[in-house]
């Protein structure tokens, strides 16, 4: 019965292409997620890699990522929205907090926790600090960093639906509107779309990880 209703929902005229249809919600969802992940990567990766390279700041990073993980996105979202008003700034900042923790800790750990013997060997060969970073540490840390990025992606894609609780679009619209109207078909459809989206993005990143990983450590 639910399957028939779902089928009817997905195959209704305009379900995909109408304004507010699935393609638009999917595009919005990807846009919010992409924006947040790009900003978070720009902030967290260079910082984490640099601190890892210098082998400094483990304590503060652990404390910061721990606190960020404990902060509920809904709280940040509502507080920032009250302060900053409707728009993109508040939700992007709220999601940023979510995405920073896995990126920062994986970038730091990926570089800092490499076998010290490797660094010594590289330095003994006459590599400069810069060469060590770009030719040894980064390639070796890449799998872990990509793991952090995949983790952050899953979390952000799964949390973007909360933005619909305030006023934005994305697939969460179906969840929140479905909830307000007690329309289970719409909510189940949203869950299916969200799960498929997460799986597809994760598979894509796994492929990217394979392609980027140096053949020597595959």
């Amino acid at each position, binding site marked *: 019965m639910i399957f028939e209703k779902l089928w009817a929902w997905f195959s209704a005229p305009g379900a995909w292409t109408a304004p507010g249809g699935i393609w638009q919600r999917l595009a919005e969802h990807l846009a919010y997620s992409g924006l947040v992940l790009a900003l978070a990567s720009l902030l967290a990766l260079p910082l984490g890699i640099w601190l890892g390279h210098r082998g400094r700041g483990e304590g503060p990073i652990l404390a910061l990522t721990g606190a960020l993980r404990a902060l509920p996105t*809904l709280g940040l979202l509502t507080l920032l929205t009250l302060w900053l008003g409707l728009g993109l700034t508040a939700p992007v900042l709220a999601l940023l907090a979510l995405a920073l923790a896995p990126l920062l800790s994986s970038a730091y750990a990926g570089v800092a926790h490499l076998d010290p013997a490797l660094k010594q060997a590289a330095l003994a060969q006459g590599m400069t600090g810069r060469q060590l970073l770009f030719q040894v540490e980064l390639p070796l840390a890449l799998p872990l960093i990509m793991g952090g990025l995949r983790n952050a992606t899953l979390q952000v894609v799964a949390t973007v639906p909360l933005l619909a609780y305030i006023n934005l679009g994305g697939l969460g619209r179906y969840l929140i509107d479905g909830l307000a109207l007690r329309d289970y078909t719409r909510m189940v459809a949203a869950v299916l779309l*969200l799960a498929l989206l997460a*799986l597809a993005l994760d598979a894509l990143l796994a492929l990217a990880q394979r392609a980027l990983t140096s053949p020597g450590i595959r």
Partner: protein
Amino acid sequence: MSWIAANLPLLGQLTLLHLAQAILPLILGFLLALPLARLALGRRQGQGRKSRGLALRRGLIVNGVGLLYVIPSLALFVLMPLILGTSITSPLNVYAALTLYVLAMMVRSCLDAFQSLPDQILQAAQALGYTRLRAFWQVELPLSLPLLIAGLRVALVANISMVSVGAVIGLQSLGTLFTDGLRRNIPAEIMAGLGLILLLALTLDSLLALLGKKVTPWRVA
């Protein structure tokens, strides 16, 4: 801030509700994850022949519960009534959904914890005449505790934060302070919620770490 002073009883009450929703699922999820993870691991070397379906079984368990993780918490909360037949306002929805999340997180970390033990230890236990069950309870489980507790701490912090999403579907927790604060335009109320959730996470995490040290006295702190 005067709002906080005027609403201390409410804050206390919501903290208790939040605590219950954070801890019960953690315990349930952990208790369910342990046997599942052990099942996924299969027989260790030195515990007889490896079963043929093991890779399949492990893949099913690990990826199956991993799949839970791609479902947003909000979505799982609203779907629970459909699966359990509960009322949409029933607190059981949140308990069940959070138990599933803890399960998803803990199966992975339990598996890692069990795998971290060298096979020689289990072979030694077998040589001493331990049955497989006894070896699990008296050797594998205690020696895996440090990693198990590390995994539990991660799940705990994530869970405390996730409980608040229940407020969106009308279930009372510290998350209620977020939704109510938004509607009534009271930033102090939201900040109180954020502060209390951080405090809960910090306190319970430290307690769990402490407990971890207590139950593994053989480790040098």
